[in-house]
């Protein structure tokens, strides 16, 4: 079509005209060219439907790709999550194992002391039973007949001895008894009693040291000395019965405390607990370590029962008391105070040991932090305490200088 129009307008008469015509044609073609160029540009622009289609398909591809990578990420995250959960449960498990092993370690340290605590009263019971057997053998019909044959005076003397004997063997210290014996011996010596030292010793051991002045003169009488011998057999029965009673009380206290301490509550339920009794349990178990040079002062106040896991609370006092004993090097004063505080109970464990250096005071509750030589301390004692206290929504703080360290534990009643 274009060619046709060119032929119509093409004049053939002169060269100049030819050039002009050609120039015009060139300009036209340039215009067409430009138009074509524009069209091409348009066709490839994003607003063009074809281009839109192209873009759409590429977006679809990209979405697919992204979805895939997203799914992959989610899978990976899930996996990581599972691993974390597993690690967490393992951590919780090993933590409870650590708590248990710390408890067992503390128990191990106590065992030798506890064995002694039980053995001592057993020894007392054995020896007292032996003494009772002997006394019963002594109180024979022979002695009865002797008593019957005594003069009125000697028999009354015998009865007075039985009445005036103080059976409470623990009411006086050995030092006080020694002083009493000495003054009694010198009194008896003055009035000329034979073997005054021995007689005084016998009297004091039989709990005879008060209001005896009116009986002194009778001790010069051989019949009354015999009456004293018989009285001692009777009195010894009473004394030994008291020894056995005391020993049984001591042994049961230790066994009870041990049971309380080792008691693991499987129900996982909190129990209303008297914190004063809870502390007494621990003190009973530590009495062997404590009495060897540590003066224990208890200042227990009236406190309401606390809803808690008693065996865990026991662990707090065990660790605090054990630390205090170590800080004092088995020689010092340990005082334990309890009292109400707001909606809770406050317990202070105070020792007069070497104190905790200021620069480590904020680290002592960290796990595995210890100042003891490797292998001696686990470094878990205080961190376990902190965990237990946090579990009970309580708080613990420390205040320490050389010669006075106070650990203050506050437990809410809940």
């Amino acid at each position, binding site marked *: 079509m274009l060619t046709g129009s060119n032929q119509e307008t093409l004049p053939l008469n002169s060269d100049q005209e030819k050039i002009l015509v050609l120039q015009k044609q060139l300009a036209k073609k340039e215009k067409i060219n430009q138009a074509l160029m524009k069209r091409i540009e348009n066709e490839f622009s994003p607003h063009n439907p074809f281009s839109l289609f192209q873009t759409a398909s590429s977006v679809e591809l990209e979405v697919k790709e992204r979805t895939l990578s997203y799914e992959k990420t989610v899978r990976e995250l899930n996996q990581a999550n599972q691993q974390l959960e597993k690690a967490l449960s393992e951590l919780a498990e090993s933590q409870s194992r650590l708590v248990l092993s710390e408890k067992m370690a503390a128990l191990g340290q106590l065992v030798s002391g506890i064995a002694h605590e039980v053995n001592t009263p057993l020894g*007392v019971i054995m020896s007292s039973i032996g003494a009772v057997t002997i006394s019963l053998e002594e109180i024979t019909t022979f002695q009865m007949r002797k008593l019957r044959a005594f003069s009125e005076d000697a028999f009354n003397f015998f009865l007075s001895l039985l009445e005036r004997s103080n059976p409470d*063997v623990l009411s006086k210290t*050995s030092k006080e008894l*020694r002083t009493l014996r000495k003054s009694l011996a010198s009194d008896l010596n003055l009035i000329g009693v034979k073997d005054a030292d021995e007689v005084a010793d016998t009297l004091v051991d039989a709990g005879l040291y008060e209001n005896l002045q009116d009986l002194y003169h009778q001790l010069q009488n051989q019949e009354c000395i015999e009456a004293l011998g018989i009285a001692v057999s009777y009195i010894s029965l009473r004394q030994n019965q008291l020894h056995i009673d005391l020993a049984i009380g001591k042994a049961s206290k230790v066994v009870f405390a041990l049971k309380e301490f080792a008691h693991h509550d499987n129900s996982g339920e909190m129990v209303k607990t008297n914190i004063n009794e809870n502390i007494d349990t621990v003190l009973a178990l530590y009495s062997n370590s404590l009495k060897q040079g540590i003066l224990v002062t208890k200042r227990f106040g009236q406190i309401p029962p606390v809803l808690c896991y008693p065996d865990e609370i026991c662990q707090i006092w065990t660790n605090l008391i054990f630390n205090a004993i170590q800080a004092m090097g088995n020689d010092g004063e340990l005082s334990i105070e309890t009292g109400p505080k707001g909606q809770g109970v406050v317990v202070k464990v105070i020792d007069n040991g070497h104190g905790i250096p200021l620069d480590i005071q904020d680290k002592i509750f960290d796990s595995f932090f210890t100042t003891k030589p490797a292998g001696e301390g686990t470094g878990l004692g205080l961190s376990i305490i902190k965990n237990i206290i946090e579990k009970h929504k309580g708080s613990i703080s420390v205040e320490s200088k050389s010669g006075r360290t106070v650990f203050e534990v506050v437990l809410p009643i809940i």
Partner: protein
Amino acid sequence: MKACILCVDDDKTILLTLKAELKRSLGAGIYCEIAESADEAWEILEELKACGIMMQLKELRLRQIYYVVYQSHGLKMV
């Protein structure tokens, strides 16, 4: 001169039963003293010494005795 046995323990019921047993089995021939602490044992040793009873006890043996006290009660050696 009488012999003397000195018993030291922190448990008084132990001391009392031990003394009763010693007196019974050894008879009137001995003194039996009891002490509830190492310090008290020292006091008694000094008193006995003053009475002439400990005259023959040499310083070394005295330290040994104290060492026994020391060992069983975790006390400080002076």
